[in-house]
């Protein structure tokens, strides 16, 4: 069974059709890289998976649960599908450790001690154990994004969704975040990644999807479709990233 399945999924914002009958199955262990021009619906597609946007028609099933199944079911889906945002969105009043421990204690109901311990391990994993006591404002963008990845992982999701995780970062900080993502992929995490990093797409991606006007225009092996784009618009797009 696919872990994510779009079935003729559409999403409208008023008269604007942002997802136009998308059919897409993502299997466990895939690292799907999502590219496309600005406004083509990449973020929306990602945000429909964890219900931050409600779909307008069709169906969308995540780990056997439909996103249309009500609030409680949506919360279950969100625990299975972690999200990392372009703007990090760390909770500014909490330390790095508290940010990461927040999910386990408030969502999974772990004890304070257990949540703390799990959080420290995750900070270790993203290379930030020594920053545990720091507030987000005291961390660089790259460090904040790594904490945000740890925060999402803390709820033990089966899938990770990344929406342009390095777009807000200075070039020299992008790599540390991409490295964490690569390590995650090597562990077998299922990932859907919106990014403009074509190097990452080729090295880490197992599948590349090019979106255009709310539908999937190209779906193939990252190395193949990047090196020889199957249509002119994708060729054009690649020349501009």
């Amino acid at each position, binding site marked *: 069974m696919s872990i994510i399945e779009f079935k003729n999924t559409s999403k409208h914002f008023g008269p604007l059709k942002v997802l136009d009958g998308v059919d897409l199955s993502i299997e466990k262990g895939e690292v799907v890289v999502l590219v496309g021009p600005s406004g083509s619906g990449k973020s929306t597609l990602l945000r429909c998976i*964890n219900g*931050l946007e409600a779909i307008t028609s069709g169906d969308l099933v995540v780990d056997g649960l439909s996103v249309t199944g009500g*609030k409680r079911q949506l*919360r*279950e889906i*969100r*625990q299975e599908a*972690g*999200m990392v*945002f372009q*703007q990090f*969105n*760390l*909770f*500014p*009043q909490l330390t790095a450790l508290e940010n990461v421990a*927040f*999910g386990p204690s*408030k*969502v999974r109901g772990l004890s304070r001690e257990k949540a703390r311990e799990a959080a420290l391990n995750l900070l270790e994993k993203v290379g930030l154990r020594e920053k545990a006591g720091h507030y987000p404002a005291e961390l660089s963008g790259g460090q904040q994004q790594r904490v*945000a990845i740890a*925060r*999402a992982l*803390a*709820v033990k999701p089966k899938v990770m969704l990344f929406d342009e995780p390095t777009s807000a970062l200075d070039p020299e900080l992008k790599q540390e975040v991409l490295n964490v993502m690569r390590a995650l992929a090597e562990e077998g995490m299922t990932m859907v990644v919106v990014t403009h990093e074509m190097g990452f797409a080729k090295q880490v991606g197992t599948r590349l999807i090019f979106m255009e006007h709310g539908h999937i225009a190209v779906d193939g092996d990252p190395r193949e479709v990047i090196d020889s784009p199957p249509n002119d618009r994708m060729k054009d797009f690649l020349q501009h990233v």
Partner: protein
Amino acid sequence: METDWSVLVEFIPELLEGAKTTIYITLVGLIGGLVLGTFAGLMRAYGGHILNAVAFTYVEIIRGTPIVVQVMFLYFALPVLADLRIDPMSAAILAIVVNAGAYIAEIVRGAFLSISKGLTEAGLAIGLPHWKVLVYIVGPLAFRRLIPPLGNQFIVSLKDTSLFIVIGVGELTRTGQEIMAANFRAVEIWTAVAIIYLIMTGTLSLILRSIEKRMSIL
């Protein structure tokens, strides 16, 4: 008539009694106003169409009418309409609750909506129900932004109690007025009244400023 500040010695205790009443009305009224305003503000920010419309109507009615008219309505019109007798003191407190509540509602709404939507999404994305996101994340952040405008409203409400002179509540202004009517010591009495108000609002300002300082705005 020469000014003679020594007459104040005789009247200070009376004026302080009036000030006590002012403080009492303000305190009880603002506690009620905070509760009402928080509910109404959250209804405005997060309620569905109906809750939002109810809170909106309340806020607009209060903001669109003078507080004197509001207290007159509570004291004189409500008994006729609802067969509900109400003493001046209760009418005064209720007027502060209802009046401050409307302004506090707008303050609460503004503070909550000023917190970046991304933080709410981050909370929702780890599987928290919306109310927990509000309680644990948005609420504490909004609270810090609430304090300065709230302090402002507290001072406005404290001064508004002087308008309850119109229904004969024995607060500070009314007390001053009564003493004045007996001895015509306008300069001395109104100076003393003004200073007592300044001491009350000044103390309030100091308390609020120290709370503000203790909490960094994020």
